[in-house]
């Protein structure tokens, strides 16, 4: 073994570990500051004293958040849209993905029909007019139907089924008089927990985090999901107070908003935080399955 290259490699390792540690700190620090600021006295936060440890421990922010009607409504709506949307997504994706993984007459044509939409679309305006025309505007359906099933997810499930459910197995079941639907229900689904988990998590995260569908299709206050409420509090207010009303920046309302801002981020991310261990495991799996076929 040449000694020279070993020394170089040791340096490489030291620098590499150091760099990756620094990288983790860069990722974690903003998140950490959010957490400590959410339980600190807003005046200390505003004065820039909260950067390592919480100061003037208070839960006023969280109390305000729990009293805020808008946030509760938003939370409820988001949960509803996420649950319903995820159910629709998963059922359609699994059935379509399975059907397309079998040797069907016309499969190529169906696949083309689906994949083509990944590369070309009518765009925002025609879709908007369609939703209005269908009477979905300002209803819960506008939040779950236009995203009912995605091309990418179908490709992923199809690849999964092609790899795990051999055609021979299905043909053997057929010989025994087992119908396609029964085979899917009794044999395929029990074998498919990983892909089901991936699909559930993919679409749940997607629905929970989406705001644009709500921004364009919902008008009524009572229907708004959490992300829209967050946008009001975190972004619209902030822009206005900094551009228009700096003169009133010591007013009471501003203080309340300040005290809520950090906590509300935590509250909004809570479901993701709880799911994160599963998320990470299954999302990574999902990306791997998806990458096999490119």
């Amino acid at each position: 073994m040449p000694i020279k290259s070993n020394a170089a490699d040791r340096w490489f390792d030291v620098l590499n570990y150091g760099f990756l540690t620094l990288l983790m700190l860069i990722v974690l620090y903003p998140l950490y500051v959010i957490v400590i600021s959410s339980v600190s006295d807003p005046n200390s936060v505003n004065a820039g004293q909260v950067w390592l440890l919480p100061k003037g421990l208070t839960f006023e922010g969280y109390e305000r958040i729990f009293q805020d009607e808008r946030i509760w409504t938003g939370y409820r709506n988001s949960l509803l849209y996420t649950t319903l949307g995820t159910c629709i997504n998963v059922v359609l994706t699994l059935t379509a993905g399975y059907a397309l993984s079998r040797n069907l007459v016309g499969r190529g044509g169906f696949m083309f029909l689906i994949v083509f939409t990944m590369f070309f679309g009518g765009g925002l305006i025609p879709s908007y007019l369609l939703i209005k025309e269908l009477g979905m505007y300002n209803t819960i359906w506008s939040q779950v139907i236009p995203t009912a099933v995605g091309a990418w997810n179908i490709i992923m499930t199809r690849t999964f089924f092609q790899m795990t459910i051999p055609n021979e197995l299905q043909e053997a079941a057929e010989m025994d008089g087992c119908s396609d639907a029964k085979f899917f229900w009794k044999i395929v689904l029990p074998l498919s927990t990983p892909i089901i988990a991936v699909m559930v998590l993919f679409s749940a995260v997607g629905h929970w985090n989406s705001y644009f569908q709500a921004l364009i299709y919902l008008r009524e206050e009572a229907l708004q999901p959490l992300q829209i409420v967050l946008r009001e509090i975190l972004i619209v207010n902030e822009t206005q107070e900094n551009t228009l009303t700096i003169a009133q920046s010591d007013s009471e309302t501003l203080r309340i908003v300040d005290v809520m801002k950090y906590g509300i981020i935590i509250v909004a991310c809570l479901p993701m935080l709880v799911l994160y261990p599963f998320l990470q495991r299954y999302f990574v799996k999902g990306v791997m399955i998806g990458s096999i076929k490119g």
Partner: protein
Amino acid sequence: MKTNTSQSAILLSKWKRIRKHYQLYLFLFPTILFFLVFHYIPMYGVTIAFKNFIASKGIIGSPWVGFDHFERFFSSYKFSIVMWNTLIINLYELLIAFPIPIILALLLNQVNNARFKKLVQTVTYAPHFISVVVIVGMLYLFLSPRNGLLNQLFAWFGGEPVFFMASAEWFKTIFVFSGVWQNAGWSMIIYLAALTAVSLDLHEAAIVDGASKFQRIWHIDLPSILPTIMILLILNIGSFMAVGFEKIYLMQNPLNIGSSEVIQTYVYQTGLLSAQYSYSAAVGLFNSVINFVLLVGFNQLAKSMKQASLW
């Protein structure tokens, strides 16, 4: 005559197969219906770009005007602004946000300690799951001129506060680097997966020949994941004019609009907020066509250079 009968025999057997598997077609039916209604009807609906859309007459009944809306867009003063911003933001992303995950994956792949590797992954994947609203909210919080952490650091050094989020000069940098912060870790998964397929024999042979870690990364790892890089590059270029619209819209305000107005926010602004449906549909269509041409063109280029391609 003979070929005729064999052809009809094939047709018959096909028909039999379809009938035998009718349940699978039922499985597929709602999805196909969904794509026809929610993807292909809007593709047809895009014809309003060549019409003067009148709500009471509907898409079919509205009168044709040819390329009027396109001409109006090309000759409007907004054209050069939105084109420039769209191009620059995407080039900036391509130069910064595209290579960083590749570099990170190559470096992380050199880590032998499995627990440290896992830790880095767990930490760097996390921001991917934060919603874009929260990300932009965090930007406003940290970059606020009044009480943001960054400006307080400036003040501490005796500097003047900068209102980053309202600054046209800073907009693109903030957009790209916050994206790197959020997604660089996540984007490296696919490269890490590709790296696990690199043959150990090659590495062992290189070690025997005295190659350093850096040399092995450069001469073995990087070439091995080149096909993956190419595929992702093509996909990236295919959505060249489309990325990040939802985030740009959230970051946009009257003070940075000169730098943040891109084709898609312009479509939203003129279409849904000012109700100029036909005009904005034309602008949107222009955007989709460019994307499609870029995708096909770049794929063709990759193919002709004997590189990995989508089809």
